[in-house]
Every structure is written in C-alpha cells, then in structure tokens.
C-alpha cells in the first residue's frame, strides 16, 4: 500500500482542517475556485443575510416565465428519516415553481434514496426515463459514463461553476465534461446523548476524539448501562452504510481506492491495506467482541437508529443536524413516560466533529445530490423539453431554493445560498448547524467512477456483514471485498 504525502503532512503537524481543505479543493480542479479553508462557522455567519436574490427574475433569464411546456422529473425525495420541516419545504418548492412557471406542466415523482437508482436504471433500459432526474452524488458518473445524460453545467442554467463546491462539481464530471448541477451538499457529525455519557461515567460534554475512543466509549456505555453505545449501520443496498463506514475507513488511513489522497486516480484498491483492516476491525470489535452496538445493525438504516436514540437506548450515532428536528417530530408522537424520556434525550443531544483516526486524520463523506438532464432517446416519449428542464434546474439550484431544500439537514449546493436571509434565519433556528459546517473542510467525495454505486451499496456492506456475522475473518472479508472490486473493475465479473 502506498504511503500518501497527505498522511505524512498530518504527521508533521499540519492542521487537519487546512490539509483536508487542500485535499477537497485539489481533488476537483487544478485551480480551486472555492477556498474551503475559510468555510468556518464564523465565516458562514459573517456572510449570512448579506445578499438578496430574486429567483424568478434569475430563472426568467434562462427560461421565460411565460414559457409553455411539459416536464417529467424524478427525484430523491424526503423519506422516513427526514424531518417534517423538510417535507414542508418540498411542498413549498413545487408550489412556488408552479406559480412562477404556470404554463409548465410538471410531473414529478419522488423516490427514496435506496429505490431511486434501481428504478431509474430499469426505466432507462426501456427508454422510459424522465426528462430530468435528481440523483444522489454517487450516481451521476455511472449514467454519464453510459451516455444517458446530456452535458450540463451551472452556466447552462444561469450560474457559474465557481458558485458550487469543487467536490460536488467533480461528482458531475466524466472524462473532462460536466453532466449536472449540484443541489445540496452535506457533511455529517457525531451526535451523542450527554445524559447517557454521564451515567456511563464519561465526560458528558466531550465527544470521543478518535475512532478508538468510539470503540471504548461504546463498550463502556454498554457495560455500564446495558444499552447500545454506537449506532453502527451495516445494511446492504442502503446509502446509510457507506456514509457511516467510509469516514471511519478514511480516518484510519484506509480507503476503497486512493479517493482520500490529494490527486486520486482510483487505480489501486486499498480495501485490504492494514489501515483499512484496522477500520473494519474497529467495527468488528464493537459488534462481535464487545456487543456494544445494536444487534440489528445488519438490517438497520439510520432511520432505525433514530427511535433507539430517542428512547435513550443508544449513546452515539453519525448523522445530520436534521436529526435534532427528527427527534422533535418523533417526540410529538410520544405520550406519558415515553414523552418525558424523549424530552430528556433531546435536552441532552450534543453534536461534535466526527472522530479522527489514530494519526489525527478526520474525514467525512462529502454527500449531496445533483440534477441531470437526460438525452431524448432515453426519455419516455423520446423528447426532452430543454427550456422547461433548465427552468426547473435553475429554480432548484438557485441560492434561495438550494438553501431552503437543504434547510434542516445539509448545505446549499449553490454557495450563494449561504448569503441569503434564509441562511441567517436558519443559523438561528437549526441547532448544531455549526458543527456540520465545521465538517465541510474534511469532506471527501466518493470515487468518481461508474462502478462506485455497486462498490458502495453492495461490496462495502457485504464486507462489513461478512466480518460482523463471523462468516469470514476481518482479513478474509477485506480480501474478499478487494477481489470483488478487482473483478468489477476488470469488466464486470461477479
């Protein structure tokens, strides 16, 4: 396994934030248009509410507001793990779009994160796709590589490439061409229950600093209180699994390929490196050795962790700021003593940075979604209404709506969203937003190759399950996953 310059730099004492910022900037473009090192909570507060935007006027320049057309649109919408607040914003968005473009007949269809890729792929096989699709960040390259998507860059819908995160733009690029516009970008944080920490004899106001600490804390919580310490998620075919395991993998210095390096080329598989195996061993220790995580981790999604956390049955988990709102929503359904318990948990909810690895490396998945326009031959009816498509994409990726649609959970894809008055309002309303903003410089995008969805949704969870169920040893599971990825990369064998 190659020893990266990046890791050496950390060892030499360069601040993690600055290094990770450099990493994210340089992974996307030679000359970084966005200086990520300045995206601290203070900076975000300083720019919030400093600029006004008129979405209708801006999008009217792309597609006239009286344009008459028809548009089919599939998108990854809200699901059971999202807060009600977000549901309302989705409703508001479509109402606002219809009001702004009353003559565009928009036929939208919401799909959950885990269903969207399967359904979209199937539709494309029958040339029955929608005109526009909003896909999760790891999906775009697969469809661009297969030739399903039209070239599309922010300039086509009235914005500038520099208005978007470099990592997000990279997830839309294939062979030097751009195929989409980012809607939102997210980095998660570690959430813990201070009351549980206190009762377990841990410092209630201090998050575990390293992943080794997570393992220790989880065991201590389980041994002292008999509840699950850390909300491990290892379900297959669920986005939640790679989003939670990859930060751990990267922190230990591992990776699927070299995606955590400054200039990844994805040519060498590193899932079987000693560092990657250490990360897998940490999960094994928590699930098998210490039995300190939910037994249901193998079938759980994050949405299953949320009620456990609210019931005071889980000490720590990785998630978005929106989980605070989700807890508030869930609390509304509780009664009697359950309500009291839920109130205690919410009062004791704390957010912190995702722990580092043994070398001080901190990492988080740079997630989000992108909008794409399909080529007419793959669309139901064989036509794409370009003007209507651009109107919708302009509207969603506008500073106003890219902020509102990410209100509770993530960050606007359009950086100008941070300058809006709604961002200012959001900073006051959404608790713990600062923590996830602080994680932005540590964000690492998934490998931008067509094989990524299969690797992340199938191979990585399989590796975890093989190790955690005892079907294979940690070494065997890592080697098996490496072999599977080799097969995938060498032409699609099993």
């Amino acid at each position: 396994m190659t020893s990266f310059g990046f890791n050496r730099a950390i060892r030499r004492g360069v601040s993690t934030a600055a290094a990770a910022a450099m990493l994210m900037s340089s992974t996307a473009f030679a000359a970084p248009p966005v200086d990520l090192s300045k995206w601290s909570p203070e900076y975000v507060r300083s720019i919030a509410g400093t600029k006004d935007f008129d979405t209708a006027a801006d999008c009217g320049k792309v597609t006239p507001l009286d344009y008459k057309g028809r548009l089919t649109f599939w998108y990854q919408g809200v699901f059971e793990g999202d807060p009600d607040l977000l549901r309302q914003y989705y409703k508001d968005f479509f109402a606002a779009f219809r009001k702004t473009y009353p003559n565009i007949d928009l036929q939208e269809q919401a799909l959950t994160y885990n269903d969207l890729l399967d359904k979209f792929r199937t539709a494309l096989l029958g040339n029955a796709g929608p005109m526009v699709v909003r896909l999760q960040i790891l999906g775009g390259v697969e469809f661009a590589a297969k030739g399903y998507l039209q070239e599309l860059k922010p300039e086509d819908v009235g914005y500038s490439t520099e208005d978007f995160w470099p990592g997000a733009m990279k997830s839309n690029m294939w062979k030097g061409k751009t195929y989409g516009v980012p809607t939102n970008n997210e980095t998660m944080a570690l959430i813990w229950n201070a009351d549980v920490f206190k009762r377990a004899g841990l410092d209630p106001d201090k998050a575990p600093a390293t992943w080794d600490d997570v393992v220790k804390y989880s065991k201590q919580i389980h041994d002292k209180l008999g509840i699950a310490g850390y909300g491990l998620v290892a379900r297959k075919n669920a986005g939640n699994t790679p989003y939670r395991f990859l930060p751990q993998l990267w922190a230990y210095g591992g990776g699927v390929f070299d995606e955590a390096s400054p200039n990844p080329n994805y040519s060498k598989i590193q899932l079987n490196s000693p560092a990657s195996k250490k990360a897998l061993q940490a999960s094994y220790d928590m699930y098998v050795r210490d039995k300190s995580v939910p037994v249901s981790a193998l079938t759980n999604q994050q949405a299953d962790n949320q009620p456990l956390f609210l019931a005071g049955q889980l000490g720590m988990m990785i998630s978005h700021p929106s989980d605070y709102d989700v807890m508030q929503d869930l609390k509304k359904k509780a009664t009697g003593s359950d309500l009291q318990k839920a109130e205690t948990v919410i009062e004791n909810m704390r957010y912190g940075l995702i722990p580092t690895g043994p070398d001080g490396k901190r990492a988080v998945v740079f997630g989000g979604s992108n909008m794409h326009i399909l080529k007419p031959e793959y669309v139901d009816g064989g036509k794409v209404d370009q003007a209507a498509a651009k109107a919708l994409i302009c509207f969603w990726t506008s500073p106003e709506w890219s902020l509102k649609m990410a209100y509770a959970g993530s960050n606007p894809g359009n950086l100008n969203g941070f300058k809006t008055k709604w961002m200012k309002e959001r900073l006051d309303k959404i608790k713990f937003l600062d923590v996830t903003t602080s994680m932005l410089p540590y964000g690492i995008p998934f490998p931008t190759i067509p094989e990524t969805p299969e690797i992340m949704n199938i191979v990585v969870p399989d590796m975890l399950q093989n190790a955690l169920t005892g079907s294979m040893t940690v070494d065997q599971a890592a080697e098996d996953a490496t072999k599977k990825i080799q097969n995938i990369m060498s032409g699609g064998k099993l």
Partner: protein
Amino acid sequence: MTLATRLADAPLRENSKEPGVLQRAWINRADYLYVLPSIVVMLIVIAYPIYYTIELSFFTTPPSLQLRDKIFVGLDNYSLILTSDVFWRVTANTFIWTIVSTFAAFVLGLGTALALNHEFVGRGVLRAILIIPWVISAVAASYIWKWIYHSNFGVIGAVLVSLGITDRPPNFIDSVSTVLPSLIVVNVWREFPFAMIMLMAGLQTVPDQLLRAARVDGANAWQSFWHVTFPHLQGVSTVTILLLAVSNFNSFIIPWIMTGGGPSNASHIWITHIYELAFGRQRWGIASAYSVLLFIIMMTLGYFYVRALSGAERKDRG
C-alpha cells in the same frame, strides 16, 4: 368447437379410421381460432422475454456500458455461476426455503383443514381469521414481521425479556444461522391458509358413507384418516404441494423486504439474488443466465404440475 361444426364433421370421423395430425387440426380449426388471441399475447409477453433472456445470458455488461453495448462471452456466465461459492449457497438456501416452506405450510394447512372440517361453535369466525395471513399484502406482512423480529425493539424479544425468559432479545434476522428459519416461519404463516382452503375443498369430496362405514368397522381416527380421507385428498394434495413449491421457488417479497438477502447472503434465494445481480449490480448477463437455469427448474416443476393435474382429473372422472 361449435355444435354445428361437430355435427358436420361427424360422418367424416366415423368414416376415417384414424385421422392424421393435420386432419385433426383441420377438424378442430375453430378451437385454434378461439385460442389464437391468447397465443399471440403469450408470444409477445412470454416467448420474447424468454428468448431475450436466453440471448442476454451469453453476454456481459460491465458497469460502464449500456445494455445495448453488451459484449458476447459465450458460456462464460454459466461457468462463472456454477463455479461461484455464492451460487451453491444461494441454491442450498432456495431448496431449504422451498422444501421446508412447502412441507410445513402443507402439514399446517392439512391439520387446520381437518380441524375445521368438524362442526363447532365459531368455526366460521375461526376460518375467516385463519385466512387473514393469506389475504393481507405480503409487503405489509413483511414489514410487520420485521418489526416483530427486530433484534433490538422487536415484539417477541420484548415479551421474552419482560417474562424473564431471556436476558436479551433473541437475534432472529441479524444472524446467519437464524435468518433463514425465521423467514421460513413468516412464509409458512402466510401460505398455510392457502393449503387449508385447498384441502378443505378436497375434504368435501370424501364420501361420508365411507367414513361412517370405517367407524362401524372399528377404525380409529388415524385409521379413518389414513385409509379413507387421505386417499381422497391425494389429487388435491399433489396440486397444492406443486403450487406451493412453484410459488416458494419464485418468492421475492418476504426475503427481499425483511433482509435483502442478508446478512452475508444467508437469506438470499434465487429470485432475490437474480434481482440484486440485475438491478443492484447491473450484471444483466449473469442474472439472465441464473434466470435461464431457474426457468429450466420451473419448467420441470411445471411438467409435474400438469401431469399431476391431469392425473387428478382422470381420477375425478374415473
């Protein structure tokens, strides 16, 4: 065949000793016309997909290519499947799933049908209640059972812990050793009412006088069942078992929703594995090769089903 045609053809049939195939086809031409629309529809919706699946099974489709850019690999997909560990594991799971589910659903259905064949107060209500698992949506049932089994906040676990029977909730679907039996229990729960209904219908054909005669001859309950009732149920039992076996071989909803084939492929059966290969991993060629193999097995089962059905009909007539 219309009555007029039959009458018109009657002298022809009487005169010729043994009409040839073409002659018989001509005689029955009206019958062919009647079934022609169905045959055309079948050719479109069944024959073409079968042909296309067989064709696809000789191609590979790397993740970066569209299906139309598929690459011919001959029999590679078949050899890849037959030499893969997962194939044998999934095949073993499929046979365990099918055989145990079919047998258990049949035995439970038979027992319930026999119990409900006697008059007692509340029989109608009980019969209606027992049919519920079969009539509710499999998707809803799968989600409910997933919650019942949940390893952390499942109903069964909570009851067992509160009664002091176990210290911690049992692990039903997050363990490679218990997941398949746990799913089979759900499947049997859902299917046994079907066997019950079929066998209850079969029990109506058992002549009452024979049962009375057996009792007069001193036969006990078991002897009456084994020597009188069961022989009359053979036809319907064969059909029920075959229908259950075909349905179980093709099961998808329960294992997919409850576990997605996991953990660690321990609950993958053929259909869920084919689905994952095709739609999760886009291995259309390999998934098609799996489907062809499954098709051969299903056709074999289908052959026995038709034979059993014909045998049952002959028995009924004879």
